[in-house]
C-alpha cells in the first residue's frame, strides 16, 4: 500500500540521489581528469535521471491523492502531507 510516507521517502531519496549526481558532475567540471569526466557523464547523469524520475513519480502519486486521508504523518513527526499543504496555501491570502 502506497502511503504519504512513501511519497515523502521517494522525494527524500530523490533529493539525496540528486545531490550525489550534482556532486559527481561538479567534480567532473572542477577536476576534469579522464576518470572523473567519465563518471560525471555516466553515473552522474544516470543518478540525475533516476532521481528526477523518482520525484516525478512522487508528484504523480501525490496528485492522485495517494495517502491523502491517512493520518500516519503527524505520528512520525511530519506535518500533514501534500493535499493538506495545498489547502493551506489555497487558504492563504
Amino acid at each position, binding site marked *: 500500500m502506497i502511503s504519504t510516507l512513501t511519497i515523502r521517502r521517494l522525494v527524500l531519496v530523490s533529493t539525496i540521489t540528486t545531490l550525489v549526481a550534482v556532486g559527481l558532475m561538479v567534480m567532473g*567540471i572542477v577536476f576534469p*581528469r579522464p576518470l572523473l569526466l567519465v563518471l560525471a557523464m555516466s553515473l552522474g547523469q544516470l543518478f540525475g535521471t533516476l532521481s*528526477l524520475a523518482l520525484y516525478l513519480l512522487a508528484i504523480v502519486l501525490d496528485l492522485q491523492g495517494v495517502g491523502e486521508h491517512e493520518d500516519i504523518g503527524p505520528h512520525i513527526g511530519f506535518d500533514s502531507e501534500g493535499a493538506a499543504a495545498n489547502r493551506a496555501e489555497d487558504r492563504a491570502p
Partner: protein
Amino acid sequence: MYEIHSVEQLLKITALVAAVISILILVWYLVRRPPLGRITKVILLFGLGVMPIGVALTGNIAGFEYTLKRQFCGSCHVMLPYTEDAADPKSNSLAAIHSRNHSFGEESCYTCHADYQMFGAMTTKVNGLKHLFYYITEYANTGPYGEGGKPIHMYKPFQNGMCTRCHSTTAPNWLANQDHAGMVEDIRKGDAKCIDCHSGEKIHPRAFAHGGTGRPPVADASAPEAPKGAHP
C-alpha cells in the same frame, strides 16, 4: 575580477552556478523538511530537475571541449613524451611544428588523431574510453613516462586523409618537393602513406625514444631529430 576567455569557461561557470542553486534548494529541503505543497513542489522541481539538467548539459559540452585539448591527453602520464614534445616551443618534431600552428594549437592531438568521417567525434571518444580502460588496467603503474609498459600503438593505421585535410597535395610548394611530385597519385589514392616517410620517430621523437616503446628514458631523448623538408 575573474575574466571569461572562452566558451568553455562560460559553460563551466554556468554549470557551477546551476549546481550551487540546485544544492542550495536540496539542502534547504533536507534541513527544513517543509510540507509538500505546491510551492515546495515547484521549488524542488527546479532543484531536482531544471538545475541538474542545466548542469548536465553545460557540463557535458564543457567536458567534451576540454577532452579535445592536449592538456587532457597528457592527463595519462604515458602520453607525456608525446604532449611535452608537442608543447615544446624549441622542438622541431612534426607534432611540435603543427602544435605551433594556430589551426591546431592546444587541440593538436585531437586535430591529427580524430576520425573525420560521419560520427567521427563519437568513435574517437569511444576509443578514448578504451584508452582509459587500458591505461587503468595496463599502464597505471608504469614509470613516470610509461616505461615498463607495453609499447603504445594506434588502433588503426594513420590515414593520409588526416594530413591531406590541410596539405591538399596541390600546393606548388608541396609539389616542388621531388618526393611528393613523384608519388602524388599514389598519395592521393592512399597507396603510399604519408607516414611511410614522415614516420613516428619524426612526429613524436621523444615518445619513440622512451615511453612510447616501453623503454626507460635515454639521455638524448629530449633532443629530437629535425624533420627533413618540413613543408607547408
